[in-house]
């Protein structure tokens, strides 16, 4: 007879089991799910969980990349390679295309975070997706701390934080009317450190920019931005070389790098465990607009 203590799972196994349950629930109950895949570490982990949830069958839904046009080439290469390996259908919802068609207009500051939203919503409508897997985590940001695992969005893709469905036990309510949709966040209960521990355990390859490398950067508002075709130095800003890595991967015009010597997954885990600054706080210019910048974007239909 095995002792009850043997029937215990580690926290990573518990998180994995919960995420797999959530993904299966979506596929069982929703008509047309899609997984939002940016080539960032959270969506990469989500894709691994999707593989596990449906093995030995293939992942039973396509992936979609909302492409701002401001990409890190390493990340785009990774995206294409991963999609090919898994034999997935990739849908690219393109911000540059939408700009050309006049569907959206470039914002004054050049950041494309906000104009991603209408492009995403248009793709959702065009493909009639009713469930969108997103890699957002509750530990990332305070508006996300109050987000449901199954987050209802009205026909305009809007989130109403005061009007969320109670979520009890593991009973997720994905019911919706035509035109409405559900955003699903399988990594809700994961922290940045959990994600890195999982990447290490599963030996998941990542785009190289997540690990320390030398890069030409400028310092602006206390953050290090790579100088490239999307991000130009302003007068008085002197580019210099630094050893950096990316803690998050987003739009190349508003995602900053952090100084780091962590060139292996073990070193990154050490670094993340010791850091005293949140990942979005350290790397995202777009969250610095106001106290409620994330909530405002989410209300408009952002992830």
């Amino acid at each position: 007879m095995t002792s009850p203590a043997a029937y215990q799972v580690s926290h990573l196994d518990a998180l994995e089991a919960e995420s797999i349950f959530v993904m299966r629930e979506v596929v069982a109950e929703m008509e047309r799910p899609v997984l939002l895949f940016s080539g960032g570490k959270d969506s990469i982990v989500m894709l691994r969980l999707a593989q596990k949830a449906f093995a030995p069958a293939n992942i039973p839904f396509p992936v979609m990349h909302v492409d701002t046009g401001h990409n890190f080439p390493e990340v785009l290469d990774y995206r294409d390679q991963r999609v090919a390996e898994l034999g997935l259908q990739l849908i690219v919802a393109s911000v540059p295309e939408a700009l050309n068609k006049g569907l959206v207009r470039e914002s004054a500051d050049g950041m494309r975070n906000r104009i991603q939203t209408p492009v995403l919503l248009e793709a959702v409508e065009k493909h009639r997706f009713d469930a969108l897997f997103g890699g957002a985590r509750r530990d990332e940001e305070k508006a996300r701390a109050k987000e449901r695992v199954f987050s209802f969005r009205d026909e305009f893709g809007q989130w109403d934080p005061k009007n969320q469905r109670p979520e009890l036990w593991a009973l997720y309510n994905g019911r919706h009317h035509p035109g409405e949709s559900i955003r699903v966040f399988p990594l809700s209960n994961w922290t940045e450190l959990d994600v890195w521990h999982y990447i290490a355990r599963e030996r998941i390859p990542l785009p190289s920019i997540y690990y320390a490398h030398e890069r030409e950067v400028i310092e602006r508002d206390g953050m290090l931005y790579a100088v490239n075709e999307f991000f130009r130095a302003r007068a008085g800003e002197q580019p210099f070389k630094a050893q950096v890595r990316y803690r998050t991967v987003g739009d190349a015009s508003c995602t900053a790098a952090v100084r780091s010597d962590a060139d292996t997954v073990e070193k990154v885990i050490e670094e993340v465990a010791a850091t005293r600054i949140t990942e979005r706080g350290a790397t995202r210019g777009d969250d610095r607009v106001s106290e409620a910048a994330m909530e405002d974007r989410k209300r408009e239909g952002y992830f």
Partner: protein
Amino acid sequence: MSVETLAPAESDTARPMDLLRFATAGSVDDGKSTLIGRLLYDTKSLFTDQLAAVEAVSAARGDEYTNLALLTDGLRAEREQGITIDVAYRYFATPRRKFIIADTPGHIQYTRNMVTGASTADLALILVDARKGLVEQSRRHAFLCSLLRVPHLVLCVNKMDLVDWSQEVYERIADEFTAFAAKLDVPDLTVVPVSALKGDNIVTRSENMPWYEGPSLLHHLERVHIASDRNLVDVRFPVQYVIRPQSTTVTDYRGYAGQVASGVLKPGDEIMVLPSGFTSRIAAVETADGPVDEAFPPMSVTVRLTDELDISRGDMICRPNNAPMAVQDIEAMVCWMDETRPLQVGGRYAIKHTTRSARAIVRGLHYRLDINSLHRDETVGELKLNEIGRVRLRTTVPLLADEYRRNRTTGGFVIIDEATNRTVGAGMIVEAG
């Protein structure tokens, strides 16, 4: 134990970290935010940019102290009105455990939020102010924890610094609460005297209260024994999804995917499938990483059987000699969560129970429970927002259910309004048949 020993969660490789989910109940007045802030801060889970942002907002609003509630009261409406409107989830870890806190607001919609937070909690933490002792709210919270069958309850008697660290004050409150809890169904109760503001008995034992011989709060949270809370006796495997690869390389594969609700499943075990009643044997228990010798909660696995049976989502795999009830007439305690329309006798709703969906009609409302006095009001005809009552339901298809007190997964269900699609109620099965 010093704070420094807590931080590197990954250095302890000998014993894998497990996961404890706990719900906190109380209001700002009880010092709940301070307590949570203290736990996060002392386990290095609070980041400097978060703290700086909160300090700046507090200062700008003229708060006399840094209001740690602002850490997650990030929604505009919350900041404008100075209230917490929803359950917030927070995370921290020590080398022993990862913790998920469901932080539920004390006043606004407390029942709906508390019930939601408690539904998945291994432990609930209730705070009282040592100067005020037990208040109505403390009793309500304790009752809701017992209704939701949270296995472990911790009462923190806070602000001990303001009562001169008095053992007498502490014992009076502890005795009163213990007596109240005895009337409820509380399997495990721990009482800890603390000062969240000063940090006494939060992470380290307090030197100001040498008369207290128990553990600090964090020590208790790290070590409370939760492995035995799982039901490993009754095999319940709600079939979530049937995996049948349409592939040229994998042929004739048929696996039943799901998360083990309770019990232990092993290859070779004789099983029964409900509602059909067909029996078979487990051929294999599989995961994407390969077959496993046994599956138990909360594992997500794929079960293959030796026989080809007609099994679909919503069916339940159990043991021939230990099966859940298959019932259409259900007695349940229902907590109503909808502000727009009350639960009414004769009302028709959708039900989600395990992986099974059904429609239901409310056949009767026996009583509404006053959660302050535990008095049963048998004269009511409806349940309004945040009210709890005993309800009789008739479902269109049988639910494969156990009593909630025996099995939280197969005993709980949610009620959904078919017109609005909103989740309007939570039910806990009392008995069936």
